[in-house]
């Protein structure tokens, strides 16, 4: 007899897997190029080798996750991926923060995995096999209750990895703490493997059996969007901010996927394909622009040694390339035309619209409100990135470190450049890519391929007379700009511009202390969402003597309600239970002997029950 689990390395190469493999490689290559110089700036040569080995292993493990065709192998690859990324999160192993982040990360991941294990083994119980295809055929005859339970288990399990609110708490710790090229991969790709899991296990294998599945996913996605972006707005740490945006974007992706689930159940297959297409397209886009942004944040960290936006500023002049890349990424993530984020967000809105058109009653309203939340998210994201880009790169430097920043070298620039190029290309060439992704989605849903484009330039989802063409927008935009410039020059001549100091209202000198701060920028939002953020202040008077106050120290914080009211209570409960439990082991040998006697007597009394 061989190994009782019958493990073999069987791979699957259907369009869905290939799609995810492509995304992984797409992001991994630039990140790898970037890493050479980035690592050199921080670590010893021994550690660089370790880092690169881990990095490659990380990529391989992610590829394995999306390639295996056996549930148990999937589980192994999944855990390996978590383990390797844990090592990468704790790469700066001297820092307490890294250790803490790593612990939170891997524990949360493991909790998620526990749910996955339960789901997988429940599946195994009914199917008697770990093979994807066997499970798929066997699951069709599964009773509804079990299906619902498996669905919920899978959703929680994958949701933890994806960072769905309220399971997102590890993201803002782990992503910023890893080296930037790793954060790029973690945020860009790793959390997407959870989306892969949701598509593969829930949509492909389990099959959507109730309407509320899709609705639940959409609601969770909408909450994730909002919560993610609101937390991001409050954040001053560049990488933490980006990490919260990952929560938001996972929400947007899941809006697509969730709608797809909804439409599958409703029998609207073309719409389901379109919805999944929107989700997958946003997945690629988010991978690209979030990767880009993390790399840029890494460059900033490299150049200035800080990630705190309040200490940055004016970098656009010191680091022109990085700032240009960051701007590209910011525009894409804020869904500004003609970049890729815009197209996928537009597509998601269209999906919701077409869905609302096709369904009736409360569901119609539900989808419209979801669209509104998506739009709100978009607006808040734009605000957040105005803050992120504006405070970090524009105006005057706020610290000496920022003042002495230098542009990063070729390899880092190349890494960022590739991703920036892809950001633009995915936006302009949207029609071309969407055609491919539509084929992937159709294949995943087992339906005929649909084309959502008019030609290679114009999108036309489901032929409802709705069009979008990023190339046309770009052409119009650029020609309007060109014509304006040209005609102004033609009629009015060269513009007369002279440089001077910023108007200081008669105050003698404006310094960087007079600039608007990130905290100030987000204050309106903090107040508007105070019911959720629960902000509090700390005012400390630093006194020289009893009468004279030398200075004030003012801090404002927000309460992370999920952490405070859920996780801390949970953890506290577990710890308290453990502390009470200590009473068992008091050190008294008499008590210990007593346990044995009592055990014997109880077992003898209840013997019949066993």
């Amino acid at each position: 007899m061989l190994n009782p689990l019958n493990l073999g390395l069987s791979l699957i190469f259907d369009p869905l897997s290939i799609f995810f493999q492509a995304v992984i490689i797409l992001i991994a290559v630039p990140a790898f190029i970037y890493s050479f110089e980035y690592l050199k700036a921080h670590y010893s040569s021994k550690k660089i080798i370790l880092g690169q080995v881990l990095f490659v292993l990380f990529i391989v493990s992610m590829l394995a996750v999306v390639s295996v065709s056996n549930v148990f192998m999937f589980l192994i690859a999944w855990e390996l991926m978590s383990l390797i990324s844990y090592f990468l999160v704790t790469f700066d192993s001297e820092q307490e923060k890294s250790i803490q982040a790593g612990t939170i990360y891997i524990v949360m991941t493991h909790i998620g995995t526990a749910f996955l294990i339960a789901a997988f083994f429940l599946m195994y119980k009914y199917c008697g096999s770990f093979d994807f295809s066997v499970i798929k055929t066997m699951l069709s005859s599964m009773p509804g209750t079990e299906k619902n339970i498996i669905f919920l288990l899978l959703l929680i399990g994958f949701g933890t990895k994806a960072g769905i609110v309220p399971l997102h708490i590890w993201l803002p710790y782990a992503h910023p703490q890893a080296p930037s090229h790793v954060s790029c991969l973690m945020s860009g790709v790793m959390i997407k493997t959870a989306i892969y899991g949701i598509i593969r296990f829930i949509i492909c294998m389990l099959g959507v059996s109730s309407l509320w599945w899709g609705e639940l996913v959409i609601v969770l996605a909408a909450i994730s969007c909002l919560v993610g972006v609101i937390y991001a707005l409050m954040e001053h740490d560049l990488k933490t901010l980006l990490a919260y945006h990952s929560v938001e974007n996972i929400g947007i992706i899941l809006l697509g996927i969730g709608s797809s689930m909804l439409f599958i159940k409703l029998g609207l297959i073309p719409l389901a394909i379109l919805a999944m297409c929107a989700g997958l397209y946003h997945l690629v886009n988010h991978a690209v622009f979030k990767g880009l942004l993390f790399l840029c944040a890494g460059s900033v960290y490299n150049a200035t040694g800080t990630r705190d936006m309040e200490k940055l500023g004016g970098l656009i002049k010191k680091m022109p390339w990085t700032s240009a890349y960051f701007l590209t990424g910011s525009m894409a993530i804020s869904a500004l035309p003609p970049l890729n984020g815009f197209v996928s967000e537009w597509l998601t809105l269209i999906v919701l619209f077409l869905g609302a058109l096709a369904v009736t009653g409360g569901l119609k309203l539900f989808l419209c409100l979801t669209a509104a939340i998506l739009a709100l998210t978009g607006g808040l994201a734009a605000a957040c990135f105005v803050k992120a880009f504006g405070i970090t790169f524009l105006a005057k430097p706020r610290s000496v470190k920022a003042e002495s920043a230098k542009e990063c070298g070729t390899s880092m620039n190349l890494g960022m450049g590739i991703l920036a190029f892809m950001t633009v290309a995915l936006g302009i060439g949207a029609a071309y890519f969407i055609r491919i992704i539509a084929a992937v989605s159709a294949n995943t849903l087992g339906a005929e391929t649909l084309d959502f484009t008019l030609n290679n330039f114009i999108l036309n989802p489901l032929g409802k007379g709705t069009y979008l063409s990023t190339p046309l927008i770009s052409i119009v935009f650029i020609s309007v700009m060109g014509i304006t410039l040209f005609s102004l020059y033609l009629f009015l001549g060269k513009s007369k511009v002279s440089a001077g100091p910023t108007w200081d209202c008669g105050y003698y000198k404006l310094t960087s202390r007079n600039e608007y701060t990130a905290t100030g920028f987000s204050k309106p939002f903090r107040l508007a969402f105070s019911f959720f953020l629960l902000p509090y202040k700390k005012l400390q008077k630093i006194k020289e003597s009893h009468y004279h106050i030398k200075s004030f120290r003012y801090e404002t914080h927000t309460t992370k309600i999920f952490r405070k009211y859920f996780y801390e209570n949970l953890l506290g409960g577990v710890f308290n239970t453990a502390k009470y439990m200590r009473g068992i082991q008091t050190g008294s040998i008499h008590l210990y002997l007593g346990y044995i006697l009592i055990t014997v007597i109880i077992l003898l009394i209840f013997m019949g029950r066993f």
Partner: protein
Amino acid sequence: MELFIVLGLLATAYAMVSAKRVSTLIGNFRLQALFLCILTLIEATKGNHPGLYSVSILIFAIKVIIIPLILFRISEEIKVNENLGFFIPPLLSLIIALILTYFSWVLAGMVFTGQETMLKIFGTVSFSMMFLGFFIMIFRMKALAQVIGLLAMENGIFLLASASSGGMPFLVEIAVFFDVFIGVIILGLFVYRINQLFTSIDVSKLNRLKG
């Protein structure tokens, strides 16, 4: 005859429970061992199990003579406070002992279903001896009391073995005796060490390791 001896065994067990001083405890234990030895001898004379002669000699040598001697020596040498140290008062101890004996009766009833009453009584007494030994280990503070409690448990089991199936195979019997003997010596050594390090053999003071 056997019945009297068996009841004697039970009586010594109760005497051990109510004993307040280390020397009383050891004395009672010796008495118990002696009863056991006589019982084994009676079984041997019945001729069913010839190995029992040597076993009874072994009991006499080890349990009646050597072990009590060792224990007495220890208690003299380390000049312990004679008081055993009670967690619960003697009266309550006796009540609990009675409950344990009743429990033993029930247990013996379950073990020896459909057997002659004599066997049931044997069973009750041996279970009682065991549980009372256990009781002494739990509720008496002195290290020596625990050693004796353990030996009393052993006695109970020995009684059960000889009553139910005429004792264990000879080789096993010897090996068990050997083990018990070595065990007592090792325990004795540790009693010395505890006395050395903790300046008392009150094991309730051994509570440095917890949590």
